[in-house]
């Protein structure tokens, strides 16, 4: 089973790899263009090229240092401490992975779930309340918190599926609206009595009780927590669901051709609702793990832009579980490294957003890369299509 899990990788890896290279190349050009000192040297091409190359090299080195292994940190405080950035990368990647899997799963049923953001928020809300309002032994409390996240996220997503199944309301429009509703709802919720901290007036919920927190794995200020195993387990579960279960077969059948699936006796309304429920549940679980693994206290900005980055992660991973895992790690590394990029080289961390968008742009358009690199049909792309508004 495990070997089959990895076989899919080789076939699908070329396109993401080329997109990756191409995006970093263009990102480098943008870094150079935005630097007035280097642009001033244009009159002497040799000097211009060396300083441009070193500028780009330094920038990407800084991203590496800030996301994988920090040599300076290791020299100061020991070999082991050098892995601090990697721990941060994984911590950043965990919520991206959950939400990315949510989006990827929906893609495989032909649904475009833009609403991972809202489902993530609702998962975090559920986890927060169960986490701070009850005192229980950890072995019961933690699962309960996770279930609260799954249920709230799942209901928030399942509602979209049900609405689509019953009335044909398009999931893209509904989830865009629900994202706004969720972020307004959390703003309101944090002002209510139930979610106010006793000694504080600003919108921050009480921290979850220590019995509901996921334990840290490495101790010290390394934030890596037990959530990594939950994340890996869920990745495996999604892979199993999609490729080894009857339900997953139905999902993919509807995603490939809903008319054919209907003729074959698969209930499309059921699949739509079930997909969106599970998808929302995955995003909600991500919210719960993020809350009890790193944040502990619910704030209005709990989801950041995770739900939206998740869409790019899922696209990058070509809507496969393993691809999404790698995509989440890459984005986690880019986002963690972007902080060092700013402090070491002065390049604004937003360049990472540009690179992320470029990677996905190239992945979404295999035709473009095929032309640029003059490839024959060696690039495969998964069907990641949303349907038209009436679909």
């Amino acid at each position, binding site marked *: 089973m495990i070997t089959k899990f990895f076989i899919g990788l080789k076939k699908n890896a070329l396109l993401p790899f080329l997109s990756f290279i191409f995006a970093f190349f263009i990102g480098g050009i*943008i870094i150079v263009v*935005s*630097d007035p000192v280097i642009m001033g040297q244009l009159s002497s091409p040799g000097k211009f090229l060396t300083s441009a190359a070193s500028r780009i090299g330094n920038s990407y080195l800084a991203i590496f240092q800030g996301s994988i292994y920090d040599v300076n940190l290791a020299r100061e405080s020991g070999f082991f401490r050098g892995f601090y950035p990697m721990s941060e990368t994984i911590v950043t990647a965990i919520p991206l992975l959950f939400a990315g899997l949510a989006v990827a799963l929906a893609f495989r049923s032909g649904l*475009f779930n*833009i609403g991972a953001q809202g489902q993530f928020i609702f998962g975090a809300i559920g986890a927060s309340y169960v986490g701070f309002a009850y005192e229980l032994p950890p072995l019961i409390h933690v699962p309960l918190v996770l279930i609260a996240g799954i249920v709230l996220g799942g209901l928030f997503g399942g509602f979209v599926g049900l*609405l689509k199944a*019953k*009335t*044909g*309301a*398009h999931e*893209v*429009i*509904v989830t*865009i*609206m*629900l994202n*706004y*509703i969720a972020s*307004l*709802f959390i*703003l*309101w919720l944090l*002002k209510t009595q139930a979610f106010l901290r006793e000694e504080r007036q600003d919108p921050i919920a009480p921290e979850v009780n220590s019995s509901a927190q996921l334990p840290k794995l490495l101790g010290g200020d390394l934030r890596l927590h037990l959530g990594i195993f939950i994340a890996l387990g869920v990745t495996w579960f999604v892979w199993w669901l999609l490729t080894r279960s009857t339900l997953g077969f139905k999902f993919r059948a509807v995603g490939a051709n809903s008319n054919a699936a209907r003729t074959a006796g698969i209930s499309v309304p059921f699949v739509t609702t079930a997909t969106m429920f599970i998808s929302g549940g995955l995003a909600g679980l991500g919210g719960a793990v993020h809350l009890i693994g790193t944040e502990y206290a619910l704030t209005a900005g709990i989801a950041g832009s995770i739900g*939206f980055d998740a*869409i*790019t992660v899922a*696209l990058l991973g070509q809507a496969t579980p393993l691809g999404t895992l790698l995509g989440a790690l890459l984005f986690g590394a880019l986002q963690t490294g972007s902080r060092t990029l700013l402090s070491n080289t002065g*390049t*604004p961390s*937003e*360049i*990472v*957003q*540009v*690179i*992320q*968008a*470029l990677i*996905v*742009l190239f992945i*979404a*358009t295999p*035709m*473009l890369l095929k032309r640029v690199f003059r490839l024959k049909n060696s690039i495969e792309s998964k069907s*990641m*299509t*949303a*349907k*038209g*508004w*009436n*679909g």
Partner: protein
Amino acid sequence: MAELNLVQKRKQKSIFTMLALFAIFTLVFYITSSKTEPITFGFILGDEFKLISEWSVSSRVGSGIFMLLALFGIGLSYLGFKSEKSTTLGSVIFGLGSIMSFLCWAAAGKFIPFTGLLQAALLLAVPLIFGSMSGLLCEKSGVINIAIEGQLLFSAFISAIVASLTQNLMWGLLSAPIAGALVSLILAYFAINFKVDQVIIGFVINVLVLGLTNFFYSTLLVPYDSTWNAAGSFSNIPIPILSKIPIIGPVLFNQTIIVYIMYAIVTLIQVALFKSRWGLRTRAIGELPIAADSVGIDVNKLRFRNVMLAGLVSGLGGAVFTIGAVGIFSQSMTAGAGFIALACLVFGKWSPRGALVAALFFGFANSLQSNLSISGVALPSELMLMIPYIATIIAVSGLVGRVRAPAADGIPYSRGNK
């Protein structure tokens, strides 16, 4: 009773919905209301002719008066239903009456600058109107445009830079549509030529524009703000006489040049879409491209052209944010207006007039919310801000009148494939 057809059934249902809402509102705002403090509406903003400068009414009485107006709206809808004509006007009057009744109830004892409220509503609606017209041009011809947000943001960014560097607002205004069209070019090229999924490419464009503008904002606009980000903004041009009409004058006819352009563009699109050859062809390729192709219309060429046109239109909407209002660019300043514009388009049933009304409604809801919170009315403003989004979900799910997108919306066209 005769069998009702599907449309009539829906209209009947919506009349029942309105009656139920009427009962609830009357109960809350009038019957059980104990608020007797007066609410005062101010009508004078500038130097317009004075018809009435203030109107003060007891909260409960005001609510009652406007609930009567809402009842009148229901009656009008019923008459429309009976004679098998449109019920829209009645529903709009019902909505207005209900909102005003709510306002009387919520703002008891407060002063509401009514004309100012309307003026702010229009200003908030202008970018939404441009954005939804952009979406309309694309989607009527069969291309889904999720990238409105990106178009607005990029043109806001470019128009601020160009106006700053040239120190001339007109150049800024000219550059905005070009910037919008550049974003459209990506959408058109990938969606029509490469047949990439339109929702996905639209989403990616938004992320790309957000990243690019954020990056250059930090590298250029912040360190060199006096040369790169000091655009200034257009001042209002009052139209003689018209701007003196009470209430309507200062709201509609004392605005910046961009707002006047908006009037022209909405009128033009409404007329051209339904009365010109271009409009007929555009609607044809959005509904049944294969039929359009069979009579010699180049489907993909016309789609490409319309998507580019859409970019020009939403570019003007982007300019509203910078040179039409605050005069400088700030990070992600469009703050989701492109998605609300999309909602307006859906809410307005993919028609220019409908999208206009929806955008005005969204603008009014927003302006009302901020006005009430400024005048100190204790209301959960977050819950009020949700109303437009909930209304959109209700609209797409067909609970109040089913909306339908153009049939071929989002489906790439190539000969031989259906």
